[in-house]
Structures are given as structure tokens and as C-alpha cells.
């Protein structure tokens, strides 16, 4: 079967996953954590259970308003909460804790983070630099390996496709579920860049190998054979990665849950895009080039 005949369908499938996320990115954007925008975070755990039942978000917010203006209150477990709001100092934090204690009984402070606005801006810059640095190194490497800029650029386009899907999904998650984008999300994006390239290199390597062997075949035929021959490996390899990440998402610790989810999404799109985006882009490019000449 000639898979590459269905190029358009593959692009449509991608569009189906890309467009809602892109719309969400444009209208809602991402929900930045205090790593990016600055502010304070308090994670507390109530010790006296019976009292915590009747905590209410509005009461909590109103009570603390004068000293700590809270943006969100998130329940992280049966009796623990994460409060996020504007930046407060250590002294102010103690007052806040005392106020909560008065109302809801004894509690334990699990985590306190406070980030100034400067560092948030910087993190954004560093993230963008890192992504472009990785992309540039990869384009150059693949270009050198395959002696053709087309390969490098197509691989990177497929890579950005994966990143955009990931960003889009997290934009939707942020809007509807309040999921924040933090410094670990950045790490996940950079890691999924390498997932994406990993599989793409495998297919491209096979195309190169087949091209040497069968000089009379067209690129489409060769690409089709290469995709077929590497598909088994690609799927099986993804299955093992997905098994590991899925167990981490479902069973792992709370603090790395969304990090693992981001990696999982990246692993899936990375596998898909290598065979069904990176190769078709290469073919479309070739067609356009042939038409011109």
C-alpha cells in the first residue's frame, strides 16, 4: 500500500489536533506559573481533619486579602492546598499561616516559594534561546548528514509541529483545568524536541539507505518503503516509552505529574510526526521543487 498517497489525510489529522490548541493559544494563552510571572506559592497540609472539611475558597481569600492577595486555591490531596498569589516576604508568610491556623486549625507548611518578577522574564528568554539553539544544532547536523538542507528543515518543521501540539494542549488544560506552565514544562518541551528528531532520523536514515540501493525509484516510492520498514520499530519503541510515562502519570508523585504528561504527549506526537509529517513534508517540498524546474 502506498502510504504517501494519503499525505493530505495525515496533514488533516495533524490539523485536527493542532487547530483547537492554536486557537486556545491565541485567545487564552498559557497559564504561567510563578516561575514565569513572579509571585508566591504556599503549599499547606491541614493536620486536624474535621476542621478542614469546611474550608471555603472565598472565606480564605477574603480573610487573607489584606496581606496576601490570592489568585488561585488548588486542592492537591485530601487535606492539602496550594495557594498562589502575589509575592510576599517571609514575615508576611508567617502572618498568613497564623491567620489560616486560627480559622482552620493546625497545619504544616510543605512548600513556600517566592519569585521576583525579574527572574520570570529571564526564564522566558532562556527558554526561547534554548529551543532555538537545539533546533539550530539539529538542522545543521541533519543537513550535514544528508547533504541536503531539505532534510534538516523538514525534520525541524515536524519538531515544531510537535511542540505546537504540546503547547496547544497545555493552553487548553490551563484554561479549563487550571494547569500551569512552569520551569519543568520548559524541560519537557526541550526533551520532546529530541523525541521528535529521534524517530525522524531513523526514517531518514532508511530513506538514504534505500536511495543508494535503488537509484531508479522515485523519492515517493522510496519514502513509502522506508516508512513501512521503520513503522514496526517506531511503534514498538513508542509503546515502551509510553508504558513508562503512563505509569508515571498515573502512579507517580503529584509534583511531576504534568511534567510526565507533557513528556507523554511529546512521545506520541513525536512518533506520529516522524513518519507522517516529516516524510510527507519532504515529499511536498520535492514536488514543489520539481514543478519549478
Amino acid at each position, binding site marked *: 500500500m502506498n502510504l504517501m498517497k494519503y499525505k493530505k489525510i495525515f496533514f488533516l489529522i495533524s490539523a485536527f489536533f493542532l487547530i483547537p490548541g492554536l486557537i486556545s493559544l491565541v485567545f487564552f494563552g498559557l497559564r504561567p506559573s510563578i516561575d514565569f510571572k513572579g509571585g508566591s506559592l504556599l503549599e499547606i497540609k491541614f493536620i486536624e481533619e474535621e476542621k478542614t472539611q469546611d474550608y471555603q475558597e472565598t472565606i480564605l481569600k477574603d480573610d487573607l486579602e489584606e496581606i496576601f492577595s490570592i489568585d488561585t486555591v488548588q486542592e492537591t490531596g485530601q487535606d492539602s492546598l496550594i495557594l498562589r498569589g502575589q509575592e510576599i516576604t517571609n514575615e508576611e508568610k508567617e502572618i498568613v499561616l497564623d491567620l489560616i491556623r486560627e480559622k482552620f486549625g493546625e497545619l504544616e507548611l510543605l512548600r513556600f516559594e517566592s519569585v521576583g518578577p525579574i527572574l520570570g522574564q529571564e526564564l522566558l528568554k532562556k527558554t526561547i534561546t534554548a529551543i532555538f539553539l537545539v533546533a539550530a544544532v539539529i538542522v545543521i547536523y541533519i543537513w550535514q548528514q544528508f547533504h541536503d538542507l531539505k532534510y534538516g528543515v523538514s525534520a525541524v518543521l515536524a519538531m515544531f509541529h510537535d511542540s505546537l501540539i504540546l503547547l496547544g494542549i497545555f493552553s487548553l488544560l490551563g484554561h479549563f483545568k487550571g494547569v500551569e506552565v512552569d520551569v519543568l514544562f520548559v524541560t519537557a518541551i526541550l526533551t520532546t524536541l529530541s523525541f521528535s528528531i529521534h524517530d525522524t532520523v*531513523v526514517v531518514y536514515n532508511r530513506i538514504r539507505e534505500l536511495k543508494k540501493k535503488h537509484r531508479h525509484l522515485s523519492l515517493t516510492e522510496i519514502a513509502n518503503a522506508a516508512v513501512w520498514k*521503520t513503522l514496526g520499530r517506531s511503534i514498538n519503541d513508542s509503546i*515502551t516509552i509510553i*508504558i513508562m510515562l503512563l505509569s508515571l502519570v498515573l502512579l507517580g508523585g503529584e509534583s511531576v505529574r504534568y511534567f510526565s504528561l507533557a513528556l507523554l504527549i511529546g512521545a506520541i506526537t513525536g512518533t506520529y510526526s516522524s513518519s507522517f509529517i516529516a516524510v510527507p513534508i519532504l515529499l511536498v517540498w520535492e514536488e514543489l521543487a520539481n514543478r519549478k524546474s
Partner: protein
Amino acid sequence: MNKKSNTKSLLWLLILTVIAGYIAFPKRLTIDTNFFSKKIQFEINKQAIDFYFWGKHIYKDFELKKGLDIQGGMQVVLRAKMDEIALEDRETALESAREIISRRVDLYGISEPTIQAARLEDDYRLIVELPGVEDPQQALELVGRTAELEFRLERELSEEELAEATQSANFLDLYFVSTGLTGQQLKKAQLQFDQQTAKPQIILEFNDEGRDLFAEITKNNIDKILAIFIDAYPVVTPSISSAILDGRAVMTGDFTVEEAKNLAIQLNAGALPVNIEVLEQKNIGASLGDESVQKSINAGLIGLSLVILFMILYYGWLGVISSIALLIYAILTIALYKIIGVVLTLPGIAGLILTIGMAVDANILIFERMKEEQRAGRSYAESMELGFGRAWDTVKDANLASIVSALVLINPLNFSFLNTSGLIKGFGVTFLLGSLLSMFTGVTVTRILVRQLVPIIKAKEFKS
């Protein structure tokens, strides 16, 4: 490769795995389970390596280092306010501040703190990590205070006072009296080498007010000790050899270059006092990490079992072999973490778990290739060697991208335009080691095992 040399490789692999297994093994393993309604309970203890070799003490307990997010503690990013400090002195001032904070933290008794100086354009920063700190308020005061330098003069004590001084905890305060000369009047301290003896010495430069005061003190107190205190603690106790009137003192002594350099840094901390402001602080309670670690490790073990199950179901005997290679991978990885002292963070554990999923990639690549070659009519042995040979190039190219990403995450050269966060580095390091090691276990180790074991399995299959 002939059969004999492969057996040799297998032997080496076995030795390597056993050594790594010993290192990877936890220091204390308590087993306490019910097995067929029988209670099983015992404890295995591992001895640390602790011996003397040619008079050198060699000690390694091979324990995993836990990051701040696991063992709890505090991370603070401080900004040094440099407005009042001349441009050329700023680097020195930052280094001095770092030195001072690290001494205070040591005195306070925090084990394994890290204090890193970082510069970003016009911003001078210190990133302080204090594991196990429970009172962030106190810790902040500790690191945030500006250093105070003071020159104090020795004084004669009466018999009574002497008796009292030796009893008293703050006998230093009795023994040395303030002179009014402080870091404010000290312009800077500099390391130089004596032109004749080439010995290191320290030049102290005073401002006008300091020059007059210093002249006064030195004129009247020749042969007495004029100690320099920082944070109420004496760092150096030179004696006055002659009156110095020009505000330029030379301090000599039996310093090594290293000592003199350190001293200059400390003195500058008093001479160039830097006000410090908190940009970011993160406090993590220990209980938060413990729970997450346990959950993540369980998730990893379940994932590992499922991957092994999948490989065996799909690839049969080859799957068994790659599962052995995968276990060797896990053992080698943990041993390597312990040997090079990787600081394990929660994202790092996630990285380890992820790379277990990726480690079989090379195997799958090779096995699929072998199947393909067999379908093309080649013999088993032939397709095996072809599978390994052809797959290597692909494995290498494909892993390169992972290695590049990992290096950007780790930022080993500490470029200021890239990340410097410990969490990201923690993930990057495990990801990098995973990519490198999985190439070794996925290709080399698997090949040794396949060459050795497949003929045996095949022979058995023919018999039955």
C-alpha cells in the same frame, strides 16, 4: 568476532555488572514481607569502602545524593546591589560575598551547601542552596547580612581579667578592643608577590580617613597584634612592625598563594560590603519529597515490569535477552549515579524512568532489522550480524539529538543565557547518562548476550 573472544567479553560484562550491582545496592535493605503466611524479616547491610592506600584515606559509601526537592531545604537567589561599588571591583565584591556567606553557612552547621556566583548582564547574583534548613527566616538572615570588617587591637589583660577571659565564651571580645577602624575606611585588599622573595603578601589600601586612623594606631602600638575581624571572628592576626603613615600596609606571613588569595577575598568582603536582596526563595518540606519519591519509584518498577513483559511477549527469546540488557542498564545507571555523585531530584527520577523506556529502543531497532533480513532469506546468524551492524549508525544519529538537548538542559559551561536551575539540570543529567549508557547496553551488551545465548537456545529448539 570468534566465539572465544565473545566468551571473554561476556566474562568482563559479568564482572562489570557484579561490581556495579554492589555499588548500586542500597546501604541498608530491610525486607519485611509475608510469604505464604510466613513472616519474612531480615536486613542486609552493605559495608562502605574504607581503607588506607599508601597513606591515603579512601572512603566511599556510594550513597545517592538527594536534591533539595527530595530531602527538603531552601534555595535562595540573591542579588548583590552593586550601585556603590566601582565597576572594576564588582567581580571581586561578588566573590567576597560568596566566600563570606559560605563561611557563615559552614559555621551554622549546614551540611553540603552550595553557593554559586552568577552574573547576568549587569546583575550580580548568588544562588544559595541549603539542604535540610527548617527555619527559612533564620537562614535568610544568615545569608542576607552584610559582612562587617573591623580592626581590633590586642590589649594587656590583668591577672583577674585573664582568668575571667579564659573562662568566658566571648574571651575574644575581652582580649581585642575596637579601634574605630572598619571596612568603611579600607579601600581594598590585594594579593601581590614580594619582589625579592616572590612570597605572596597582601596589600591593604585605606582611604584618607583610614590612612590617618591607621597611622595613629600603628605609631602607638608597635609590636602589638592588630587583628582583623569579620563577622566578629578573627580572620588574620598580624602584628604591627612599624608605623605606617601613607595608608598602604603590607601584610606578610607564611601564606601559601591559596591562603593569601582567600584572605584577600575575605578582606575585600569587608572593604566592599555588598547589600543583598532576595530575588527568589523556595522552601521545601522534607515530607513532600519522600512521598513523591516513593510513588515515582513504584511507578518506575511497574513500568519496568510491563516493558519486560511486552518485550518477551513480542520478541520471545530475544525479548528475554533484551530484558537482561535492560536490567544491566538499570544497575549500571544507578551505579554510575553513585560514582559520579549525581544529585537526584524528582525530575531526575522522572528522567531515569523515561530513559528505561528509551533504552530498549536500540534493541527494537536491531530486532526489527533482523526480522527484515530473515524475511529477505538470510540465515539467522547472518541477519543477526547485519542487524547489529546497520542499526549502529542509526542508533548513534538518533541519540545525538537527545544528547544535544540534554547538554542544553545541563548547561555545563554555565552560560548565563541558558538555564541555571538545579531542577532542570537534574533532569538533564539523568537524560544524558541514560542516552549514553543505553547505547552501550542496547548495542554492545545485547550483542554479547545474543551471540552467546542464541546458539544454545537454537540447539535446544532443534532437539525438542
